[in-house]
């Protein structure tokens, strides 16, 4: 394994990455996948490195995934979580950053409700920063694990039709996926209620449609997004029942899908809202593979950034 070709201190978003950088992460993840299949799932690669996981938003899935990745790489991890936007009451983010830096971590994994926070942190501290989701902006490791999962079923991303369905406006998963899929040559179609489609989204190089049938037709991959019930303060739709009627993915509707279609969901799922149970657990679903690949992708990112840090130091 080599860290050659990786020079970044941080992973803030897919938007900044080049195609070779994306490829490098995916290739590295592929080689780490093997580690997770061993009886003793641990390599000494990051021994002596300290990784801080800062979660300013509740997240079980992403946080556990990073923690497992860190443990399998033998890094020392520290976890901080807080449901407000600062770790200590009244403390500014800048002060938090300076305090953390005083503990000299090598890497910081951060999830925050406000877009731009990982960027802000990365500018101020020498540790490498990994964005684990910033508001509705980016969630780069999710897009990477999605790509890895697709590539286990399809020979290449180029030329694939990928439809992403749901609450586009509030989704960081969508934005990172759009950037990654566009860079790799896939065709992206977004679908969702008009009230959840951000303005001028076509300028990101995607097509927007407003029925589920249009999204299903011809798609090689269908990604269903979580309806963020807790974020619907803006009168976006009247009820989860109406949502399910318009955009809920059911087995019936999937009959019109292309052969070999795969169904993805970044989790956690609202069964019966955006996806029917028989689809989530059905033969096209690759949702559990996504979870497994999440660990490999995060190991790859931690490994590459730790190497970049070493060279910079």
């Amino acid at each position, binding site marked *: 394994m080599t860290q050659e070709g990786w020079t970044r201190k941080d992973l803030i978003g897919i*938007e900044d990455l080049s195609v070779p950088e994306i490829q490098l992460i995916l290739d590295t993840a592929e080689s780490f996948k093997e580690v997770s299949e061993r009886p003793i799932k641990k390599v000494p690669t990051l021994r002596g490195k300290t990784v801080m996981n800062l979660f300013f938003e509740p997240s079980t899935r992403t946080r556990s995934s990073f923690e497992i990745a860190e443990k399998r790489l033998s890094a020392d991890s520290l976890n901080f979580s807080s449901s407000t936007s600062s770790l200590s009451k009244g403390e*500014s983010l*800048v002060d938090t950053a300076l305090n953390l830096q005083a503990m000299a971590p090598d890497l910081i994994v951060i999830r925050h409700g*406000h877009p*731009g926070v990982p960027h802000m942190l990365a500018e101020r501290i020498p540790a490498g920063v990994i964005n684990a989701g910033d*508001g509705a*902006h980016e969630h780069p490791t999710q897009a990477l694990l999605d790509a890895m999962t697709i590539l286990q079923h399809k020979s290449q991303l180029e030329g694939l039709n990928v439809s992403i369905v749901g609450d586009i406006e509030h989704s960081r998963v969508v934005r990172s996926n759009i950037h990654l899929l566009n860079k790799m040559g896939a065709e992206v179609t977004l679908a969702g209620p008009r009230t959840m489609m951000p*303005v001028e989204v076509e*300028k*990101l190089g995607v097509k927007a449609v407003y029925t589920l049938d249009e999204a299903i037709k011809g798609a090689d991959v269908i990604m269903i997004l979580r309806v963020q019930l807790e974020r619907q303060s803006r009168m976006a739709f009247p009820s989860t029942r109406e949502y399910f009627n318009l955009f809920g993915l059911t087995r019936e509707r999937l009959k019109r899908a292309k052969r070999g279609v795969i169904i993805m969901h970044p989790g956690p799922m609202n069964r019966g809202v955006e996806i029917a149970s028989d689809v989530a657990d059905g033969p096209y679903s690759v949702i559990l593979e996504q979870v497994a690949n999440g660990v490999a992708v995060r190991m790859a990112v931690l490994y590459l950034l730790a190497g970049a840090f070493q060279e910079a130091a």
Partner: protein
Amino acid sequence: MKLVVRGGRVVDPSQDLDGFLEILIEDGCIAQVDEKVKGIRGAEIYEAHGMVVCPGLIDMHVHLREPGQEYKETVRTGTLAAAAAGFTSVACMPNTAPVIDNRSVTEHVMKEARVAGFARVFPIGAVSKGQKGEELAEIGEMVSAGVVAISDDGFPVSNAELMRRALLYSQHYDIPLIQHAQDLDLSAGGVMNEGEWSTRLGLPGAPGSAEDVMVARDVLLAEDTGGRYHVAHLSTARSLDMVRRAKAQGLSVTCEVTPHHLLLTDEAVSKSGFSTNTKMNPPLRSESDREALLNGLADGTVDAIASDHAPHHTDEKDVEFSVAPFGVIGLETNLSLCLDRLVRPGIISLSRLVELFTAGPARVLSLPVGTLEPGSPGDLTIFHPNRPVTIRAKRFRSKARNTPFEGWRLRGRPVATILGGTLLNRPKN
């Protein structure tokens, strides 16, 4: 006390003057403007060769933060910044603590300005008591203390009936009502313009229509009432168009635009990497809005350029984009930005720019300044039309540093400011 300024190009759009003229100021007032002024024995002489000389500039929309938020700015530091930047008059907004909604707060601000002595300060009083949008403030009392307009700036007058009443009542004192036009429901939660860039960045957007629906409503009420209505920091193509049509209809409707809305777009939020110095209200808009504003400058729809100088402490701005306060400062960048980015590329003429900073705002607010008419206050701004300058916030006289223009290299800069016949400064590098 006599002062002669000679050798420069004198531009005074209030009288259609543009030529190499001499100006004699006597006892604080403009005495003569002529090819060769007479009776200059004993006068101090200011040689202005290579410079432009114009009526003292007016920034009709600034926040001086006093009383109540002196850690951000004071009347003294704000007017010092004004003087350093060629502004001899500023109109300050009432969103202080306490609010400028009565005689005594008005008098306090004016007294602080007199004591400092760096610029004329024309306070703008609140429309409603405490800027709460419920009942009319004592407008007559404030006018007799020196208020030149009313505004609930920062807190749009949302209640249409209050707006209608205020447009009627303010006519007793012949003062304009300045509206921060924003529908608070449409803009709720928005931290930048809604458009391609809010979509890319995942930041909640406030649509341009939040401004437009308010301007539309208010223009209708201005038509019904005959009141004087002024749109503060107008930022969208459609609002501008409504002002244009209202003017054509003969209504007393005017507007100002800011240099940041003229020179930046919402893309700056992304390009600056979420810099909170690109966060203001109204937000930076789209390129098509920006182009419309430039057209509005050229075709006469826009009455004034004003900075909406909004000082904030560095600690307040050094936070997450979403939670940072809105606003940027502008007094000390206004002139150089406009000379370099509006006049030099030929978007507007030099005399039109001077009009937008002098006769234009003076007309909107019925101020006695902004002209070289004999008998007017002896306020002059002398600037070099193309001497280079680099914006460096750390050199500002303002207490605040929140500019989006840090590091910009520009040509054209203020050289000297004369207030009531007194040469205040010769700003250095």
